[in-house]
């Protein structure tokens, strides 16, 4: 049974295109690792690393001068740094969701994109973890968050959501780093056997731990992969739930809601998928991955963005409904300020970019158009940042007592740290694309064999 017997409208495009082979995939995977990358790579990394250095300089200035150089103050005590933290943690959910949840659902199209998605997760979490560490008032003491035996005879408060957050974020980062490395081992083994550089052979030999692809090893490996997929799914869903509890377990009107955990998880998945679309829109053509990351892949990713956009719209509506149904004048007032207050544009930007703009993706042609998907996913990325801005700043500045109301104005240092974190993320991503296999070759190879077989059969028909 092949697709060739079906009418054209019902045919599903294969997940690989063109004249592909197992060896050809290995050569594609290490394009930039074995050959000189194009000049644009050098230009890009120069810019991004300078931006990252600027961001780190701003962080250094903030640490040296004091946290007063930032815009946050009473009552808006959580400013850009916490917005950026939640934003990057959200982006960091893409890798796990694509790599793990889609794996459990046997979605084979995730094979070609999982590696870059996992890398996105690792780098986004590196960005995210900077922010809480530098946001504490005494940045030389954040290790106090870890419960370790100490001379003070004190322990952390395990009932505090901030401590749950420490556990969730550190667990998630270490597990996603390990998961990423685990997936890399067979591909590093391939690189080790084929690379021409002596230095790389030594490095890859060590990193691939002597992997030779023994059938017994593969059996264990797949078992571990399945176990990790199941466990990491729980982890991914728990992490942003816990981040949301930093907010939901406080008494601030607009934060104290039971909808927050699922609402944050959906938001994280949404921004994560948009981030992956954005990365692939550029990487696909820059690295000539079109044969393995086909328009069908982009189409499916965009469908996920569209689906999650609709769930987001539902979550926003339910949030508003909860505020109205609570009959609590403070909560109702804060929600009114989201869309009709002094910073009404923040709320409307959130709704427009997250719920209205992605509706373009209902059209199949637009789902496959690179400019449209870049606009939509960039819009979603910005929109999700605005959502966190709305939740954090607009709720805090209108607390219960009008006497404690205040304003918030970010300073240039705030902006520099935010933009610097984007530069750091892109620098890490560019280095990854340059040095490591960008596609999980061992996962895509069976797909290639499957479609080759299908094509041969079709030829016989």
């Amino acid at each position, binding site marked *: 049974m092949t697709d060739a017997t079906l009418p054209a409208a019902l045919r599903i495009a294969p997940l690989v295109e063109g004249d592909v*082979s*197992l*060896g050809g995939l*290995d050569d594609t995977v290490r394009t930039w690792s074995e050959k000189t990358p194009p000049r644009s790579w050098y230009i890009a990394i120069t810019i991004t690393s300078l931006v990252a250095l600027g961001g780190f300089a701003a962080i250094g200035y903030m*640490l*040296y*001068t*004091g946290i007063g150089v930032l815009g946050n103050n009473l009552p808006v005590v959580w400013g850009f740094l916490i917005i950026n933290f939640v934003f990057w943690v959200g982006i960091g959910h893409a890798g796990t969701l694509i790599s793990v949840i889609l794996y459990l659902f046997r979605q084979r199209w995730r094979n070609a994109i999982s590696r870059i998605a996992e890398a996105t997760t690792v780098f986004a979490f590196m960005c995210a973890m900077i922010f809480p560490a530098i946001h504490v008032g*005494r*940045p030389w003491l954040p290790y106090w968050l870890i*419960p370790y035996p100490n001379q003070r*005879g*004190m*322990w*952390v*408060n*395990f*009932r*505090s959501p901030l*401590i*749950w957050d420490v*556990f*969730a974020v550190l*667990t998630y980062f270490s*597990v996603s780093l*390990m*998961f990423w490395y685990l997936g890399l081992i*067979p591909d590093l083994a*391939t690189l*080790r*056997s084929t690379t021409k550089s002596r230095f790389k052979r030594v490095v890859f*030999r060590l990193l691939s*731990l*002597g*992997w*030779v*692809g*023994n*059938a*017994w*090893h*593969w*059996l*264990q*490996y*797949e*078992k*571990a992969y399945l*176990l*990790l997929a199941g*466990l*990491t799914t*729980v*982890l991914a869903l*728990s992490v942003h739930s816990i981040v949301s509890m930093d907010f939901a377990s406080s008494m601030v009107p607009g934060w104290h809601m039971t909808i927050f955990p699922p609402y944050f998880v959906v938001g994280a998945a949404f921004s994560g998928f948009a981030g992956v679309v954005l990365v692939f829109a550029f990487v696909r053509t820059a690295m000539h991955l079109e044969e393995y990351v086909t328009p069908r892949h982009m189409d499916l990713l965009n469908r996920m963005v569209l689906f999650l956009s609709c769930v987001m719209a539902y979550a926003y509506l339910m949030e508003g409904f909860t505020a109205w149904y609570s009959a609590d004048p403070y909560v109702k007032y804060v929600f009114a300020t989201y869309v009709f207050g002094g910073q009404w544009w923040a709320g409307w930007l959130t709704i427009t970019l997250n719920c209205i703009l992605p509706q373009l993706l209902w059209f199949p042609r637009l789902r496959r158009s690179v400019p449209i998907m870049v606009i939509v996913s960039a819009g979603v990325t910005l929109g999700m940042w605005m959502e966190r801005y709305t939740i954090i700043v607009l709720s805090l500045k209108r607390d219960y007592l009008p006497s404690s109301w205040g304003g918030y104005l970010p300073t240039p240092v705030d902006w520099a740290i935010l933009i610097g974190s984007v530069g750091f993320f892109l620098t890490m991503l560019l280095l990854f694309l340059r040095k490591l296999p960008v596609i999980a*070759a*061992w996962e895509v*190879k*069976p797909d290639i*064999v499957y479609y080759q077989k299908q094509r041969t059969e079709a030829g016989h028909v």
Partner: protein
Amino acid sequence: MSDRVFGVLGLYRDADALLAAIPEVKASGFTRLEAFTPYPVHGMDEALDLPKSMLGVLVFLMGALACVSAFTFEWWTSTVSYPLRTAGKAMNGWPGWVLVMVEATILVSTFTAAFGMLFVFNKLPFFGNPMLETDALPAFTRDRFALVVMSGRGRLDVEAAKAALRAAGGDALEVIPEPERVRASAGWWMRTVVGLVTVCFLAGYGMDWATRTYPTVRPMVNMEVQPRLDPEAPDAFFANGRGMQRPPDGAVARGYLPILAATPEDAGKELVDPLPVTAAVLARGRHMFDLHCAVCHDRLGTGKPWLDSTYQAQPVDLQSAPMRDAADGFLYWVISQGIRTMPGYAADISQDDRWAIVRYIRALQRSQNATAEDVK
């Protein structure tokens, strides 16, 4: 290189060819087979009679252990080691601990899955694998599939194995020699141990020397170094160069009015208890009495000190008749100025608190010498 044989390798075009070859080679009488593939090939476990992976059991056990440990740890820190009541919740409020238990369970079980697979079951890292030295290595990690007839303790009919592999469709046949196992000599061990010990000593003494020679780097000192005046610190602002100025002569601190009476008897005639008659005053008096007076005069004022006999002073029995008859002002004067070996408390206890103590002494005296009138 020894002339012992590790195995004979044949390469196959694709996974189907490999799966078809395995039973054929087996039929030729070779049962110790291993397959090497660039990606996991399903059906290989049945073809090669591979046992089931026990990884799941290990992961479950470690995950359960982590869950229980996390709970125990949270219970112990929150209720035994550092009981700190927050938000009016019970000390052993376990619902708040669940999320940390979840994260700890996931952390330990995922790392058990990964490291258990790599280190325990697959015995990696292993760089002495003869397969790493074969010419076919680039092929079977890329797009070819290798089948190896393994030798049992170095004994293998190489030609027969080659023939069997070729008959099953294999090519690029390769005899893999058993690698030479070189035992480390005593000299090697000597050099290694001496070298490691030297490195440790040098590193330790280097750190010690560095920390003694160079001052500790203290980044961000702005919490310690502040534009503020510490007590007793000099300052150029005043003519006398002191940062902390003495109060002007004759200044009286609030709540610490000096007593003008020269003797306790005079004070007894002149001073009157200024406090209102309330339960709060008595409670305050009791608190201050227990804090400052009870250690010598006892909680009931009987004058039996809690201190042992090396403490020579003999405090006055406040229940004695002279003390019961003494005026309020008399007691107030004694508390303030001290008498015999008792020091004055004017600098430590405020005026109102001293009067509250007097009031409480009165209550104590009445309680210990109650009459039938008192209970009517």
